[in-house]
């Protein structure tokens, strides 16, 4: 199993999770989970269905209450309410489409930056960044699936986040869109943003991430660089072998 890196000399990580536990009734969804994401780093969170990946995102976003442990962003406790995430520099995309039906493409992005100066400019820049500048006036429902996912990404990017949480960003995308997505994520990280992503698309994760954390039955079973994790027998048994089988 790969080892956790020593953090004694590193700056305060953008996201630090320690001893995180989440219980749903009698079920332990997460047990003693720890992970860190530094500024400019892309960390992938993988694991079989039901491993607790989205629960971990929900805990960071204050949608579920941890039973144990701490979640800190830049050394301070993460916001306790979901509506304070944006103010704390945290942006998240959701599984699936994650767009607001009934609103236009531009409005879908605008809604995340209403309290910012030059909100229209911000929203348009974010849409240009994901290649949708020309579609800003269209109803979001009129866009094909991959472009709707780009709208959700643009909405997260428009806030200028310091921590970006992406929940299955490559889900349902073709190879060309996955490549575009990888490029965008690397660009965002190069700008200093910490990125934590949950994904089943193993090749995408291994290609875009600096480090990978593997969850199984709510516990971290491996963490390290992609090539280290890929070679880890426990990971192969728990997840990667299954993914190849599928």
């Amino acid at each position: 199993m790969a080892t956790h890196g020593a953090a004694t000399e590193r700056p305060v990580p953008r996201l630090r999770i320690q001893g995180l536990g989440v219980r749903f009734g009698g079920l332990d969804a997460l047990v003693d989970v720890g992970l860190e994401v530094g500024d400019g780093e892309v960390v992938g969170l993988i694991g079989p269905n039901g491993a607790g990946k989205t629960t971990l995102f929900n805990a960071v976003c204050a949608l579920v209450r941890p039973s144990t442990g701490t979640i800190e962003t830049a050394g301070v406790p993460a916001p306790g309410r979901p509506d304070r995430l944006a103010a704390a520099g945290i942006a998240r995309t959701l599984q699936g489409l994650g767009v607001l039906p009934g609103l236009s493409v531009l409005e879908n992005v605008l809604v995340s930056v209403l309290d910012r100066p030059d909100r229209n400019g911000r929203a348009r820049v974010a849409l240009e960044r994901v290649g949708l500048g020309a579609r800003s006036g269209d109803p979001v429902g009129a866009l094909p699936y991959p472009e709707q996912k780009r709208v959700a990404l643009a909405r997260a990017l428009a806030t200028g986040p310091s921590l970006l949480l992406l929940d299955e960003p490559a889900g349902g995308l073709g190879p060309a869109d996955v490549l575009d997505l990888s490029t965008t994520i690397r660009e965002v990280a190069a700008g200093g943003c910490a990125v934590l992503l949950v994904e089943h698309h193993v090749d995408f994760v291994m290609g875009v991430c600096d480090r990978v954390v593997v969850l199984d039955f709510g516990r971290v079973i491996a963490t390290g660089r992609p090539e280290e994790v890929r070679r880890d027998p426990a990971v192969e048994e728990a997840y990667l072998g299954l993914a190849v089988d599928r």
Partner: protein
Amino acid sequence: MDRFVFLLATGIADGVVFALFALSLVLIWRSTRIINFAAAAMAVTACYLALAVTDLTGSYWAGLIIAVLVGGTLGWAVERGVMRAARDPLSGVILAIGTVMVLQALTGILAGPQSRPAPVPFGDRPVIVGGVPTLSPYDLFVIAVAVTLTAGLHTLFARTSLGLQMRAAAFAPEMSRLLGVPVARMRTLGWILAAAVGALAVLLAVPGELGLDPHAGDPLFVSAFAVAVIGGLDSAEGAVIGGLLVGVLVSLVTGYLGAAVAPLGVLALLALVLLVRPAGLFAGVEARRV
């Protein structure tokens, strides 16, 4: 032909009031997925206070402002005090019906069951144009208020940050919360707006009916509910166009076939729309257009 023009004109005047009240139902349905069965009772309660202020001050306009303010306050109180206990749409309906019983009982106890006349700020006799009776000055006033209010609501929802947040909170509350939208506050604001619009609609309708009594809003609620279903419960445009459609239909059927047949005409239209487009004429249009 003269008769047709007259019936068309009065139908439009009635229709804009139906549209306003239907708009009040649509505003709440969109944000909470609850049909506000208490809308009429809340509006009538506000109108009783409005008429009391008009009696006291001698000013119709003071009463109109009070109707809007009290309507909005009742919307706030019912949402905060009653509707937040609703765990699902069915319990919301039950709570709304309970609210109707409380408000109608209270207004009945305090004001009595008898109907009382409502004042009008302008003449309500039709103006004769070329020998044909058309709209009265009061009808024109009602149409002007309805058009102004509808345009104002459209501007609020389409052009302002507040409106965008209200729409986002209505369409996808969980996601909106993650984006920093104060969803609960937007919902309360929706109730305040809807109840104020409903109170104004009833105040405008009462002079044309038999007067104000604790049940005076019930017929308007039935018509407006039909309008909202015909137009599409999610669609503000549907409420406006459906209101005009039903207003003109009721007027024409009443004029040519008799008042007793008018409800059947509305029922027939309702059945036809439900058969052809079960979600309403404008369902989904707004979701695609915006």
